């Protein structure tokens, strides 16, 4: 509790405010509604986002009623087209927030994102201030096409920014920062956390700056570097390790591009050991970049091999025993971390 209070910068008194405890998904809705009330240039577009329905996950339920169809645009099933459309709107100074129904479908919009939007400012100075909200991750028995974590494709792409909140407060604060940023930002929101995770969310204008990681739990024997869904799993693992007298620090990256390299260096210099955890499969994932960065810049501080834990390098399987074998979780993190601590 103390760690959390410190790291989020909220006083314990404020955190006791029960009325501000909400689910991760409610924090996303709150941020969107807040920003749409504040800035008339912000609009929402995507499949099924409008009307009574309010999106596949109900994030925008009631929005059309409040903001009207001009600002809450239902689109046809045409991700490539409507993402490119958002780029045109953004070039003209609007701030579209695109709901990709599932992060998995973002591949159909790939050209609009990585070829057009990501390159425009570098090529001729056109700013593209849109946000794509991409509901990602699995563990909820949704199979290969509703469970993906495609963040590495975008982290690899110059000109984009990528965020992946792991708490309700960050879900709000990073979304406000993403919408206000003048660049295309992909916001990976964790489906498994939507309704399973609750937490204190600051009211009103709460912005978490892009590019800043957060020490979610302090410790000095090893660093677990993570983000998104796996933050909670890492915290659970750290709790269990602590019960055995192993003090793990948990660094929540929060923003994957630009990476908070200072925070990575700080924690690795402090602990001398690093385990990187994410839900996405390991090969060429964000963990590979973080590991390479540590190898390049903190080699002499290391007391053990940098470890990575991610999904297996397979399509994401559906059946519970297979998906459980595929996914990282608190238990797997605990075991790897314990071995690393003993190295």
């Amino acid at each position, binding site marked *: 509790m103390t760690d959390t209070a410190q790291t989020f910068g909220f006083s314990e008194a404020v955190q006791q405010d029960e009325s501000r405890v909400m689910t991760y998904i409610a924090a996303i809705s709150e941020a969107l509604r807040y920003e749409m009330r504040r800035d008339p240039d912000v609009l929402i577009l995507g499949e099924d986002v409008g009307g009574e329905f309010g999106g596949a996950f109900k994030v925008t339920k009631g929005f059309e009623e409040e903001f009207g169809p001009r600002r809450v645009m239902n689109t046809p099933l045409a991700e490539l087209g409507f993402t490119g*459309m958002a780029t*045109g709107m953004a070039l003209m100074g609007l701030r579209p927030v695109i709901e990709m129904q599932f992060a998995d479908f973002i591949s159909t919009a790939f050209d609009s994102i990585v070829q*057009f939007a990501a390159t425009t400012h570098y090529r001729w100075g056109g700013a593209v201030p849109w946000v794509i909200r991409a509901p990602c991750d699995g563990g909820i028995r949704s199979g290969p096409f509703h469970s993906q974590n495609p963040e590495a494709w975008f982290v690899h792409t110059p000109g984009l920014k990528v965020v992946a909140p792991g708490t309700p407060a960050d879900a709000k604060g990073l979304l406000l920062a993403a919408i206000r940023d003048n660049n295309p930002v992909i916001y990976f929101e964790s489906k498994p956390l939507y309704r399973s995770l609750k937490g204190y969310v600051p009211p009103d204008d709460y912005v978490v700056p892009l590019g800043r990681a957060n020490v979610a739990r302090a410790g000095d024997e090893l660093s677990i570097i993570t983000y998104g869904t796996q933050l909670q799993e890492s915290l659970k693992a750290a709790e269990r390790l602590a019960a055995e007298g192993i003090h793990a620090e948990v660094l929540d990256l929060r923003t994957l591009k630009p990476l908070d390299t200072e925070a990575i260096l700080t924690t690795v210099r402090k602990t001398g050991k690093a385990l990187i955890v994410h839900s996405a499969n390991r090969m060429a994932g964000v963990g590979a970049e973080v590991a390479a960065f540590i190898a390049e810049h903190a080699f002499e501080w290391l007391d053990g091999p940098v470890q990575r834990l991610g999904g297996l390098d397979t399509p994401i399987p559906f059946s519970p025993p297979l998906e459980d074998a595929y996914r990282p979780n608190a238990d797997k993190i605990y075991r790897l971390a314990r071995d690393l601590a003993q190295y």
Partner: protein
Amino acid sequence: MSAQELSRDQHLEIYYWMRLTRTFDDRMLALWKQGRGVGGTFSQRGHEAISVGAGYALGPKDVVAPMHRDLGCYLLRGLSPRRAFASLLGRATGVTAGRDANLHGMGDLSLGLIGFISHLPQSLPVTLGVAMSFLYRDEPRVAMTFTGDGASSAGLFHEVLNMASLYNAPMVIIVENNQYAYSTPLSQQMKVPDIARRADGYGIPGIIVDGNDVEAVYAVTKEAVERARSGGGPTLIEAKTMRMLGHAIHDGAEYVPRELLAEWEKRDPIRLYEERLLSAEICDQAELDEIGRRCEVEIEDAIAYAEASPWPDPATVLEGVYAP
């Protein structure tokens, strides 16, 4: 036809932009043959009536996303030949300060220009978004873009026609049907001879126009622009023409039958327009020659400027990836 409303000055202006485009193109190709070019480039020959005629139909606050055969449209929007040439040569003074190649990326929102990327037809959805921003803000502005016969077979083309129709977007799409997509003739791209008919599937007007007749291109585009501006929604215009040289500078286009080119050569858009201006006694030959000389001077100046311009400083290579 609203083209009849063109004043003498407007006629001469249109002629000037076409002639400037042709002069630019001729000098550019010559430069490349002398080994003074950088990378590749695209010839504009045969497309001048489309890029100029359609571009001329826009108002100053409208926005356009031209493609790689639309140098004329860039120029008439106010992009100077100096900046354009400096772009082609990769200089610091070019539109993209050396970041994007040949005619790509020549965007300048102060001129209402959106730069294109290679991936076809990515300018279409972006232009739709520009049009949607005009609807969003209740502005009486129009967005226009150009695309090729080849690009009209991409799924994205159809996504955009559908959405533009659905949202009644104030948008004009010009398809420059120049009979080829690189080496592939139209007959190997689609069974339907008229790309304009693709509009039927989306419930929007699909209009065919002679792409070598600048007045006709201007007239149909003007009508489409005014329709869009007054809430009548999008229009697809198919301008039929011929790509008179290779796909790009490296391409000799041996695959194009010479007789076909000879047929189209007789209908060179600039010569056609000259004949029309003279026969309608809108101006005399001396005036046309004078405009030609002006264009030569301007393009020579642009080349001298571009060649004397500094290369971008490699120390700046990291700059501009992100907007502040």
